[in-house]
Structure formats: structure tokens, C-alpha cells
């Protein structure tokens, strides 16, 4: 699975929305019903699934599915396994 596919699968799992219905322009709160707890759950799940670490500054700018995919794609997994 590519990083994008993995990220989409995680978004689908956390939001409980069918992966086929998820599109990049969707807003996490408005369209997928996220609240802060769900948003943090998503970040942790993404970090663990892809092996990246998302900083607080990056997290603050994540509003849409597309934002998440962009961060996931541009970040290279570290050579060390992530701290869990």
C-alpha cells in the first residue's frame, strides 16, 4: 500500500466513513464529523501506521483530508522505528 492509500484507510477507519466516499476536499469537522478527540486519535493512528511524527505546528494546520494526505506524503518515515 502506498502512503496515500494507508492514510486514506486510517481516515476511513477513524471516521467510520466508507473509504470510497472519502475525497480530498472534505473537511474533517464539517464533513466527517471529527471533534478534537477524534482528530487526536487520527494523528496517533497516522503516526503509527506510516511511521512519521507530526508536530503540533503541523497538526494545527490540518483541516481537510487533502491536508492530511499532503503531510503524510511529504514526510519521510524516520529510519528509527517511531516512539510509541
Amino acid at each position, binding site marked *: 500500500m502506498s502512503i496515500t492509500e494507508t492514510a486514506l484507510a486510517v481516515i476511513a477507519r477513524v471516521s467510520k466513513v466508507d473509504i470510497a466516499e472519502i475525497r480530498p476536499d472534505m*473537511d474533517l*469537522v*464539517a*464533513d466527517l464529523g471529527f*471533534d*478534537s*478527540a477524534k482528530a487526536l*486519535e487520527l494523528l496517533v493512528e497516522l503516526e503509527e501506521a506510516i511511521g512519521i511524527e507530526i508536530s503540533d505546528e503541523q497538526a494545527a494546520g490540518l*483541516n481537510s483530508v487533502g491536508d492530511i494526505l499532503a503531510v503524510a506524503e511529504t514526510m519521510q518515515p524516520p529510519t528509527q522505528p517511531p516512539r510509541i
Partner: protein
Amino acid sequence: MTTDIAGLPTNLREGLRRAALDVPHRGIAIFDGRGRSCDRRSYGELYRLACDSAARFAGLGIGRDEPVLVALPTSWEWMEAWFGLLLRGAWPVASSGAGAMAAAEAQFEKVDKVMAAIGARHVVASDAFQAQAAAQGFGFAREGVVTCERLHAAAPAAGDGALGHSDGGDVAFLQLTSGSTGVPRAVMITHQGAIHNPVASDEAIGAPFGEPMHRLTESMVSWLPLYHDMGLIGCLMLPLLCGLDTWLLRPETFLARPRLWLEHLGSHGGSFAPAPNFGYQLCVERISADKREGLDLSLWRAALTGAEMVRPETTGAFSAAFEPHGFRPEAFRPCYGLAEGTLAVTFDVEGSGVRTRPAPRGTDAGFAMTEVVSTGVPIRDTRVRIAAPDGGGLPEGEIGEVCIKGPGVFRGYYGAPEATAAVLRDGWFATGDLGFLEGGELYLTGRTKDLLIVHGHNIMPDEIERIADSVTGGGGLMRSAAFSVARGAAGEQAVVVVEIADHDPGRLAEIGHEIRVRIGRAMGLPVADLLFVRRGRIPRTTSGKMQRGELRQRYLDGTLERLHVHDPAGRAPAQEPSR
């Protein structure tokens, strides 16, 4: 103060000093954002740190009775700032971040509004906060931000004069709570309230065991935010004044990894930990059976639950999930409190777990409860009466407004005498909550006030409506209205009703989406249901005041006619709350 508790400290500085002297080996451990490693310091170290920063705040020209915001995460920087201001005799005002989903800009706007409303000149915050707020052109960022660096660089004022002396009746700090003008209200909490309330709570929590909780246990583990009354009073003042070890996680760490709370409870001998209902619900939903392995909750004596409606389905599910890992269902201790009461009003003192009665006629249908939970009896020196709409007292069993009186009752809303006078008379605070007494125990059944409580946080509907109005251009003839309905164990969820002249289904979908996006950005709050209605469908009194309660009733009855919305973009609709 009217209490017979012997030997209470006269003010919070004295309380902190006593902790440093009496339990020198105890203190506070604060976990980093990942929730793995912690920085533990004794109460003696906290006292010295606070004295030092009090002198530096004085050196920066911060005076007595001056409100100063503290917008920092749960950290030692927070402790240094908040306690430093307290010992200076200034009034620390803990302020929230805007929530993980909300934009930083929303937080700056909130800080800006609060500072203006209470006349604060300064906010203690991080370098990043200052840089970003300055980049966005917020006025307070020019001179008003005291970063930790600036605090450390300040020359301490010489001598003992930097430490303000406070009497018990003096205001100690301000507690922010949601306000109907869209700006939070600042609740004035006195030293005596901030001391009496946690000490009386400690006694009530220990009641089933025959002595105050602190004699039976050594530590508390909490993730509650320090800008929330339950976090500040229940999880910081209480352990400090009663000499418990405290382990603090950041709220966002818990939300990201709820298991860490239970894990640290087990490994640090935590026998005392509170949370709102949603915290327990989150543990049930997010910690799957395989991830429960290895948890040891056998020492947990008091699992306090309050700050929002206690839901038997949640406590039942939590007990079922964690009993195999040592959790005892009788550890659940429902309680009732609110910021205007400092915190605690009633506690379950029986210690036999969650006790319920069938919900009587008159219980708010929107809370979707078939049973109501006993929140116990008033704490020491505190009285509860149930008032009829005309103010007269009601006998046991009858539903009315919950009114409270006691040492914890707040002094008033800072800078808002009319708002204070509307709810505080002869020392009695009319809470806006509805309930009844039975056998001296309080049961909550609803609210008279228009207020949403989502995840333990109070939200005034006006805050949401302003955002909706900013999209539709409403607010005049056409209004929007927000209220909450409960969705089973998930608790209260926001519903927004918008009056509109435009009836084009595609256009309405666009507007609805924009409203959801803006509310999400500003407040981190998802709207469970958003519906459009024709102009004039939101009921109003003859004087034009919106009747949200009546609107909510029509929504629940299904008699509110929705305009048809069709989204050509095919965006997934957010789930509607089930009723």
C-alpha cells in the same frame, strides 16, 4: 468563613507553604506531550519556584489584583506562571488552547476578547504563541505577551513586598466559563472557596471509608485541563492542599492515547482519579479488549464522574470492560459541581457505585435518559435547595431549579455586575440546572439555562449562533439557534437551526457546509445536525427573545419542518443524532 473544619490555611500561599513543609517528599509530576516521561518536582520546589517568579512578575510591573492570562499547556511553565501570579497577589486566569481542531487564530481571538473584557494587560504564553499572534497582527502581541524567557530575564523585585498578602475572603484567581455575549465570563474565586471546596471534597470522597481520602491514598492521576474548574480545583488544589502526589497528563495526550491514563493509574498507585462521563466513554470505545491486557486498576478507590450528565450506560460499559483488570464498579462516585461553586456541590458519599432512579415525569427528553443518577449529598457547610419558577422552595421529589449556598459560592462575574445580580442573591446562586432532592440526595433532570455541555465543556449557544449568522448574514430578522440533544452514551451533541429566505436545495447545501466549516475552525466542534427552516419558524417571545427550549422541544417532537437540502457535490452528511 462559616465552617467548622479546623486549621484550614488562611490563603493559598499558606496552603502551598504547608504542603512544602508537611509532605516534603510529595509533589507534582507532569508528563510531556507524548505521555511517556515526566518531570517530577516536590511541593517545596514548587513553592520556591512560585516565590521566585512572583518577584519577577513584580519586577515586570504586575500588581496586586491585576488579572493576567496564562495560556500555556499543562507543564512546569504553567505552574511557574500561575502560582507565581497567585503569590504576587495578582489574579491568574487560566485560558484554554482553542482545541486541536480549531485554528490558532481562534485561540488568539479568544485571548484578545478576554483580555479586553477583563482589562488584562498581559498574557503568559510560549514564544511560538507570541510570534504567531504578532504575525497575525494581534495588538496584545506587541507588549502584552510575557514569554517564559521574558519572565526569567526580568529582574526580581527586592524584598518580601513582591509577595502579596491575601485574606481568605480576597479573590484568588478568575475561572473562565462560557458567556452569552460570545466572550467568556470570569468567575471570581476567593481563597477561602479555593481552600474549603477541595478540603470538603476530600472529606466527602473518603466518607465511605470513614476518613478523608488523603489519609487512605497517596496519589492522583489526572488528564483534566487546568483551565477547567474540575482540573484546577479537583486535580491540582485538592492534592496540593491535602498533600497527595499528583501525576498530570496533558488533555490532548489522553485524547490521543486514552490508555496512558489507565496505565499511569496502575503504575503510580493511583487510587484517585476524576473525569467527565465522556472520558470514561472514550476509554470504553478506544481501548479494545486486547489493549486492556496488562492494566491494573485494583487500587482505584474513587473514580469520580461529574462536569456533565453521568450516564449509567457509560459507567456500566466501563465497569464491564475493566472489571477483569481490577476495576471495582463501586469505585464510581458521581458528583455535581460547577465553576460558580468553585467546583464541588454534591458528592455521592455512599460508595456503592452509581445509583439510579427511574427518570420522573418532567425529565428533559433531550437528554435521552430513562434513569437519573444520584449525585449525592451537599459537601460540608454547603446547602442545596430546589426552587420553583417564582423562587419559592419545593419539597422533596419535585423538579425545580437547583440553588446553592456555601463557602465555595463565587464572588461574582468580574466586571459584570448585572450578570452577577441575575443569578446571585443573598448568597444563593441559582445554577440554571434542574433537578430534585430525594432522601437529601440531588438528582439532575435538565437545565433552565440555554447551554450546551459537550465533553464537560460549557458552550453558550450564542457563540455558535454568531458564527452561523456570519455566514447567512442573519442575526436580524432571520436568526439561527443552537442547542444540544443527547445521543446515548456519546452525550450532548450540537444541533443548529438556521432560518433562511433562500430555498434552493443546492445553495442550502453550500451554506450548510460553510457553517459547519466555520464552527469547526473556530471551536473544534462538529455539528451533529444542521437544518434550515423558513423565516419565523424559530419561536420567539412577544418581545423578540428567542425561545431555544421551545425550539428544541419541537425538534425532538419532529414538528419542525426542514427545508430540503441537496448537495450536488455529494459530500458525506455528518451523522444525525438518533433520538
